[in-house]
Structures are given as structure tokens and as C-alpha cells.
């Protein structure tokens, strides 16, 4: 397995796998279970018990400045293995062990049948719901938009 820097540009495959996990992170338990049922996902083994803990979130001033610690967030992680050997990982915000486990199985399935198949197949409903919600939020914000323009003052 080649070791790549976490800051390297993701490959197309990694990009798609991240998309699956980005969707899984915001999906409800019912949506995740529905996706697994649609994929006919097999029973998975827990490689380590599902755990809830804290992770330190880091930020950068202005998005690209000096890194600093924003604060800690509660996450629940699950690691599962499919009978065929794929290992799936999920770290989800919050304390919901069932959601973390379902997301981890989805990650393992993504490695088995391809992440794009899942992001645009079993998770298409989640993708569309999130896109609609984001569009609504953006539209609400856009309605309050004010255009400022200033006269050129000559000096400066």
C-alpha cells in the first residue's frame, strides 16, 4: 500500500470514497439502513468495539493562516470487516453507535462495489435531500443579500 501525504490531491477513487462518507455523515439512521438494504450488504464483523470519544478540531485563521485548536468534538467510530475482507471505517459526529456502524459498512461496501455506485445509487436519496436543504439555506441567505457600492473618493 503506497503511503500518501494526507494533504496530497485525492485520486478520483479517494474523492468518490470521501463523497460517500460525506453523505453518510449527514444521513439519518433510517437512510443508512435503507441504503444497506438496497445494496444487500452482508453481515459485518466489528474489528474493534464501537467507541465514543473526543477529537481535537483544528482550524486556520482566515482559512489558510496559522493552525490553532478550535475545540473538541464528540465522535463515535466504528471499524468493520465484510466476510470478503474489505475493512470499512467511519467516524461520525455525536454518540450514535448504530449510525457509525452502518456508515462503516457502507464504506466497506464502497470498496467492494465502487464508491461512485453508492454515492449516486443507494445514497442518491440522501444526496438529493442534502442538495435541496443546502439550496433552501442558500436561497434564504441570498434573500437578505445587500449590494454595497461606494463612490470613488478620488484620493487614497
Amino acid at each position, binding site marked *: *500500500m*503506497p503511503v500518501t501525504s494526507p494533504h496530497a490531491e485525492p485520486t478520483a*477513487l*479517494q474523492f*468518490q470514497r470521501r463523497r460517500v462518507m460525506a453523505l453518510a455523515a449527514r444521513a439519518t439512521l433510517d437512510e443508512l439502513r435503507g441504503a444497506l438494504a438496497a445494496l444487500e450488504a452482508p453481515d459485518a464483523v466489528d*474489528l*474493534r468495539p464501537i467507541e465514543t470519544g473526543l477529537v481535537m478540531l483544528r482550524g486556520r485563521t482566515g482559512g489558510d493562516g496559522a493552525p490553532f485548536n478550535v475545540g473538541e468534538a464528540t465522535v463515535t467510530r466504528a471499524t468493520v470487516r465484510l466476510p470478503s475482507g474489505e475493512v470499512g471505517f467511519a467516524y461520525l459526529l455525536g454518540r450514535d453507535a448504530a449510525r457509525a456502524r452502518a456508515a462503516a459498512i457502507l464504506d466497506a461496501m464502497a*470498496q467492494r*462495489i*465502487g464508491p461512485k455506485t453508492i454515492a449516486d445509487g443507494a445514497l442518491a436519496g440522501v444526496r438529493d435531500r442534502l442538495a435541496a436543504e443546502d439550496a433552501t439555506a442558500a436561497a434564504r441567505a441570498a434573500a437578505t443579500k445587500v449590494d454595497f457600492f461606494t463612490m470613488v473618493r478620488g484620493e487614497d
Partner: protein
Amino acid sequence: MRDTKMADLSTPTSILSPGLPEAVREAQSVFRSLMMALARPGTVRRIAVPVQSPGNLSPAATAIALALCDFETPIWLDEDLSSDEAILRYLRFHTGAPVTPDRGKAHFAFVSSGTQMIDFDAFSPGTLEYPDRSATLVVPVDELEEGRGWRLTGPGIASESRLLAGPLHPGFVTALAENRLLFPRGIDVVFVSGDRIAALPRTTAVEV
């Protein structure tokens, strides 16, 4: 549509098996077995936790690694063990411990057999200020029995105890004797056989 085969993601070359299902309780149980084995040299104890050991790492050796190794304890593996991808994957995933090729840096050393000559001097015996910074050597044996074999004396043993461990390289007992002279420095040896362990701390004198 199927994506292309994921060579750059975690393609399983060997199937990873689960670690301890109840890590805290079971690691404590392994720790206690090991502590008692070191406190009473020559006694054989059973490690009573369910482990699915990878490759030809013994269940007891696996349990010791799961209970005691983490990111702060570099592990050294002999050529046999370190060439097994299943063992490397297992230790990396479940313990997070770095596997080092440098024996002198290792806190724990696992070998595949005691019949090869093990160079005790290559491992860290700790320092006079910090004798605890020494290596622990885990040696698998086929036979491990108390009550017969070597005569052991030293701290933790009322008069004498007997331990049979083998097969081992003929130079092993000499190496143990030289190791004892380094006290308070020196390495500690743990014998494992299946799910049983016995230990020879650096203080124990061994007579054949």
C-alpha cells in the same frame, strides 16, 4: 457501474481479525497474568482472553501485544514474523505500535522460535537511572511446564522453583546468566506456549 480495482485504498492482502472484544477488562486480565508470572518466576499461567492471533504469532504473544503495546512502545519482530503481512497489519491496526527494525529501540521483541540464537546484547537493557527502559523478549516454546526442568532461584521464589521451557537454543541459558549480571539493567524474558505464559525476569538465576 463498477469502479476500477482499488489498489490505492485498503485492498485486503490478508484478512484482518478482530482484537479484544472487551478491551479494558481483558487487557487488565492479561496484565495481571503477566505481572503475576513476573512476580513468581517459574509459575505457568493461562491467559484467559479470546484472541484470534494472526499468522503464527501465538495467542498468548498476541494477547501480550494487545494489552501492553501502543504508540509509545516500539516492537521488534524477527525476520519470520516481520515478513508476514497479516501480523504487521494486525499489530499496526490494533496496537498502533511502530514496528522497528532496530532491536536497540524496541520495548517489546517477538521472535518466531527460541531455537535460533537470540542476541540479548542487541536489545536495550535500560540505563542505571531508568532500568525500566529495557526490552521485554517474548519467546514461543512448545513445552512449558512447571515443577521440573531448570532450577530457578531469586526474588519472588521462596526457596527454588522449577520450570521446563523448550526447545531453546543451547546458548539461551548462558545468555540468561550474562543478562542477570547486568542487574539492575537487563532484559526480561516471557515464554509463551499457546495460551500459557511463564516469565524469567532479569533477577532470576537459572541452573540447568
